[in-house]
């Protein structure tokens, strides 16, 4: 049984999503969230949604991460959960 590529990417997306909400450092969460967005964009590219993937690459993995990092930078990195 050969695993199709989008299955692998989706599995990674789910892992990244779970990690992003469970790490104890907010900066790390922001960066993992960026990885999540990028993997998600890969999976959309595999599904042929090139425009959506392009947008997600620029917006989700790019600008959103910068916003998150900016917000964390001006508040605190520590969190209880």
């Amino acid at each position, binding site marked *: 049984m050969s695993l199709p590529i989008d299955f692998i990417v989706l599995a990674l997306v789910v892992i990244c999503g779970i990690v992003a909400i469970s790490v104890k450092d907010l900066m790390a969460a922001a960066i993992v969230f960026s990885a999540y967005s990028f993997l998600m964009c890969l999976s959309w590219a595999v599904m042929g949604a*090139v*425009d959506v*993937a*392009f*947008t997600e690459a*620029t*917006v989700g993995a*790019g*600008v959103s991460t*910068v*916003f998150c*990092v*900016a*917000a964390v*930078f*001006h508040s605190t990195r520590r969190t209880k959960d």
Partner: protein
Amino acid sequence: MKITGLLTVIICGALLTYYAMDFPDFGDGRSPANTYLSPHFLENTMHDAHVPNSVTTILADYRGYDTMYETTVVLTAGLACFFLLRRKESTSPPARFFRHVPTGLTLRIEEGGKLPAENSKVFTRIDSLWAPDSLIIRNTCRLIIAFVQLFALYVVAHGHYSPGGGFQGGVLLGSSIILFSISNDLRRTLKRFREKTAAVLGAIGVLIYSGTGFVCLLMGAHFLNYEALSPLLGLKTGDPMARSHGIFSVEIGVAFAVMSVMIWIYYNLSSAGKHDEGL
């Protein structure tokens, strides 16, 4: 809280999975979603607007009205961030940091100490949450920014034929300025691209979009019906190129709006609304 949350989530998930079993299989080309409306778009995009990328045609023409509001949503976010965060009063920290450019030394000047002149070439002000100045980062970013902007313009202009368009290009343009701001500092960026510019340009971008639609209305057709633009462009009535040009003008509006709003949001978030010290 944790247990109730987990239970809610599991119940929701089970329900969703149960109902998902009715879906057409993944990749099924004969599902109603793939056979009812979408063939019309694919088959007519060349004929109607002379644009091969059917996503662009739907985005800016068939469902252009949605996209106008999508751009407005972006502008709204920019306005909201400004409205919520921006503070006019200066709350600069008591001690300020300056760098002596020839030697690279960092000076910390306590409150009441004499500050170097604003236009001093020898001393430059640096942020209190300051990161070490790196020649490599600054110059690499300076190199990259030009290419990012060039690519962004390509993406805007080439949205008719390949993936991309005003939105993606606009975000790229915006992120090139954000990159400049990260690799240098916020004050220098603000000198080149002022807050007022960002705010006005954002509004103007959306105004280009809705204005294009309004011109169509003034020409007697329905709102956003780019066909009505053909007399203004010197084309015959019914020429698909009128729609093509209409789409292009709209994309430019989107690019302007998105670029400046992304920069504006970044300004407000990265300095917590003070606009004196960035990341």
